[in-house]
């Protein structure tokens, strides 16, 4: 059994993933992730020396595109789903600025 994930670890990962978790959710997450990681732990005992990692199962290289322009979206369509369209762009709270 792997040690239970620390709360700080769960908090850190939640911050990396930009997920706001309540205290209760963090506790549940720590337990569930620990159980899953415990199950997964077995593969770390396999002898994998010299085994190449497989990140693609297909044997394809160089899928390249010719440098030819296509039509871009009309701006209204690009902005059609935007939660905060403003001045022809996508409005967001400024990075670095903190609200009161």
């Amino acid at each position, binding site marked *: 059994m792997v040690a239970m994930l620390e709360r700080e670890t769960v908090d850190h990962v939640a911050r990396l993933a930009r997920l706001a978790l309540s205290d209760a959710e963090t506790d549940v997450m720590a337990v569930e992730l620990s159980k899953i990681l415990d199950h997964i732990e077995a593969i770390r005992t396999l002898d994998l020396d010299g085994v190449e990692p497989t990140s693609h199962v297909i044997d394809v290289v160089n899928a390249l595109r010719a440098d030819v*322009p296509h039509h871009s979206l009309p701006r209204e369509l690009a902005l059609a789903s935007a939660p905060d369209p403003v001045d022809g762009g996508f409005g967001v709270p400024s990075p670095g600025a903190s609200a009161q």
Partner: protein
Amino acid sequence: MSGAAVEYEPVIGLEIHVQLRTRTKMFCGCELSFGDEPNVHTCPRCLGLPGTLPVVNAQAVHYGIMIGLALGCEIAPRSQFHRKNYFYPDLPKGYQISQYDVPICGPGKLGEVRIHRVHLEEDAAKLVHVGESGRIHGADRSVVDFNRGGTPLAEIVTEPDLHSADEAREWLNLLRTTLRAIGVSDVNMEEGSLRCDANVSVRPLGSDQLGTKTELKNMNSFRFLAQGVKAEIERQTALLRAGEQVQQETLHFDPASGRLTPLRSKEQAHDYRYFPEPDLVPLVVTEAMLERARAELPELPADRAARLERDLGLSGERARELAFRPELGDFYEAALAAGGPQLDAVALANWIPPLVERIGSDADPAGSRVSPSALAALVALVSSRAVSQTAARDVLTLMVQSGDQPATIVEREGLGAIGGDDSGLAQVVAAAIAADPDAAEKVRDGNMKAVGPLVGYVMRETKGRADGGEITRLIREQLGL
């Protein structure tokens, strides 16, 4: 006491982002643009819409290979793209597609600086601050414009081989010139197509260990680069002299104040969680791709400068002046060819700066009214003493204005040189001596500085058509020296 005599040596490495001059973005077919209305060059891909997939622009790969060859890099036979994960509004997918452990170009060298690597990636979008939001009281608001998002970038990383702010600026200029010559980028720092970050540290002179480095960002001109690096070297040196430590941090250069301010530590706490981009297959550089890149590579500026210096006897400075602005080098070499083997290559080279001065310092002489053969003809007239140096400058001014041949202008304006035995120059010199006996006396006594007023008299009388050397010779002759 111990630190009092220690000298410190700066160690500088650069990270340069270059926007490639493709027609379309790195992973989609939207056209590259500058200064257009916001969000008119976007598509599902470069907006990061759900379900979209990237497809690599072949021309960006081609440019990447050309950069690698120009910087003497090893080209990786097989490289791949990774995802670099972080959240920011200018990053539509929540990750940037970049290269990580296997970049397209490995170690190389440009000038005296070793290149660590060159890799391909996509540019972020533009975030424009618009002030206070009406909806959320007190909150600052920004607007994202995705026109730039996804522009192909090559990131060039050097080894820490530079040792002063001036060296850094000069080397960056060599890099810029090289990239412009091979045609892969506009390399315009003001427009952001060339961006430079610097890693700076200092260490006691003679030490072979690197000190703690800081990363300097946002130096978007050559001047700011030199300014920023210089300020940081001074800051670090002062810290070490005072017995304090340099903190590893990222500093933002403010052009307005010339000051460096640390970015907040929260923004620095990145864990990019790189992993191989599953949506893209590996990049394999074939012999055919290499051949094509080699074929398109022109003579590189550094090579050209060396050749002009070695083969034509130009000074190093003049050779670089011509080689680092390929349009000047091209015009010069065209004029040289037009002038034939008799033309003095060094004299011709010295006529390029006066030409540039007359057509505007950023203009391409190929677009002026002066043809390479006309400039060669002017230099030939000067060499044969048919026109004096001084008159030739006036002829050049008229050539730039009218586009006429120098011989025509000389004829029309009566600017031919006065010289030789039957030209009457000797009489003018005699008149000059007669008009200023004091000066003549001083010259006779060995004070050659006093020759000035006499030469000036002759020049005025001949309207600059006489040759300065010939005047001096006649003065000395008539004064019995």
